[in-house]
């Protein structure tokens, strides 16, 4: 499996990662090598095998519908790079 520079750019965009132009080729090479490793999976026929999403055969536990979290906005927003009037600020999002 060999990834083209355009595919690297498409994936990087999908993942919201800036990749400098001079890094694209190296990334394409690394990712292609990793995908070659991954492609070894094709050595085995897995038709009829049930995919395993989770290491346990357990089911979801349910939480009682009770409010347990107090308001700690000031504390949480001390972590934030930009806040105004209780809102997290980001560059304008065009609708």
């Amino acid at each position, binding site marked *: 499996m060999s990834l083209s520079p355009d595919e690297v750019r498409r994936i990087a*965009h*999908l993942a*919201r990662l800036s990749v400098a132009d001079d890094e694209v080729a190296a990334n394409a090479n690394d990712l292609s090598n990793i995908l070659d490793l991954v492609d070894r999976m094709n050595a085995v026929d897995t038709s009829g095998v049930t995919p395993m*999403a*989770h290491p*346990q055969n*357990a*089911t*979801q*536990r*349910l*939480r*009682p*519908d*009770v*409010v*347990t*979290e107090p*308001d*700690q*906005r000031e504390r*949480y*927003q001390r*972590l934030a790079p*930009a806040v*105004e*009037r*209780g*809102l*997290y*600020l*980001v*560059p*304008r*999002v*065009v*609708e």
Partner: protein
Amino acid sequence: MQWETVIGLEIHAQLATNSKIFSGASTRFGNEPNRQACPVDLGLPGVLPVLNEGAVAMAVRLGLGIGADIAGRSVFARKNYFYPDLPKGYQISQYEIPVVGTGQLEIALDDGTVKTIGVTRAHLEEDAGKSLHEDFHGMTGIDLNRAGTPLLEIVSEPDMRSPAEAVAYAKKIRTLVRYLGICDGNMQEGSLRVDANVSIRPAGSQEFGTRAEIKNVNSFRFLEKALNFEIERQREILEDGGTVQQETRLYDANADETRSMRTKEEANDYRYFPDPDLLPLEVDQAFIESVRVELPELPDEKRDRFISEYGLPVYDANVLTASRELADYYEATVAAAGGAPKVGANWVMSELGGVLNAQGLDISDSPVSAQALGGLIQRIQDQTISGKIAKQVFEAMVAGEGDADGVIEAKGLKQITDTGEIERMIDEVVDANPGQVEQYRAGKDKVLGWFVGQVMKASRGKANPEQVNQLLRQKLDA
């Protein structure tokens, strides 16, 4: 060419839980920004989701309400995309296996027919936060209070053939979720959000046309308008030989039009996969039964009971069961009146309905209690007052002047049933109008009505009209 419209709706109902679907933060509406956003809702590192039992129970309620299969095992997936109001960069949503499977719902159409609309599925997911674009010197503000509020997305089959049917279905869903107590149905606040998939096809065709998805419709009226606009838009395109684009369109209520949303580039690559932080949800028979025993009487059951128990016409029964609160009010009124269900229905629908409409009030805010209205109806039934005077009494009750008996007493509105007094008034009227007496005796029966009116006027409406009628005949025919 004749075109047929095909509509399917996706309705997002915010579930009326106390806490969020995966965290213990409150879901209350209207708090200051981010005061109800805890570490799980904020997507802080290392924190984990735990599923709210209340949200599951509400989803099952809906499922039972539409006669749907409840999945014994359902799975939460991650829908991955970046948006500032989506803190984790993914939305947890049931994708391949939803908790509620196929069900159906009956809607009553204006021509009196009933149509069954299929529900494909209903699945649990978390709501996103809100972006505020105004007033932040060119920045957007993010409020995550809503992030993580449980949503039930109810997806219909493309079974509706007109905007009116779509509105009837959406209203029925709203009625149902409110009956079930799982959603307040408030469209303005966004508790109930309707997205419509609409396409048209040549009448008689079996294939579906290309559909557009319409978002941002926050009332039933706008839903109808948006669909009408969109159907017309598509018809014009097709009749001009063009093709409809499959896309998402926003309804702009001010312009009354739908507009193409600028397509987010990789909008369709959500990279769904099972959320490894959550295990498969198992809903067993015992859980389903525990929800079933708590189910209230559903709208259709209530409507049928109103018809059989109170002898109401189908129309009245439909109107009065449109909400649980209205139905409860009606039943309390009938109980207080000690019967007269049809009179009660008329009063609740027309007189009270008119007042609520005019004042923009909900039945729960009615200025006249069911007890008080029942008391008024009782006075009509026992002939203390006439139906006409009753309206006057009711107005006073609305104005807060007391209950029926109090108003009747204070205003001296008690009906005059004393034969002697009525005869005295008749004598005065007859004596004063010899010409009309002659006309009557010459065979002009219509004049009797005029005499009744005059006597009623003289009694200032308080005389019993039946008695007046009877005594007048006796007098004039003598």
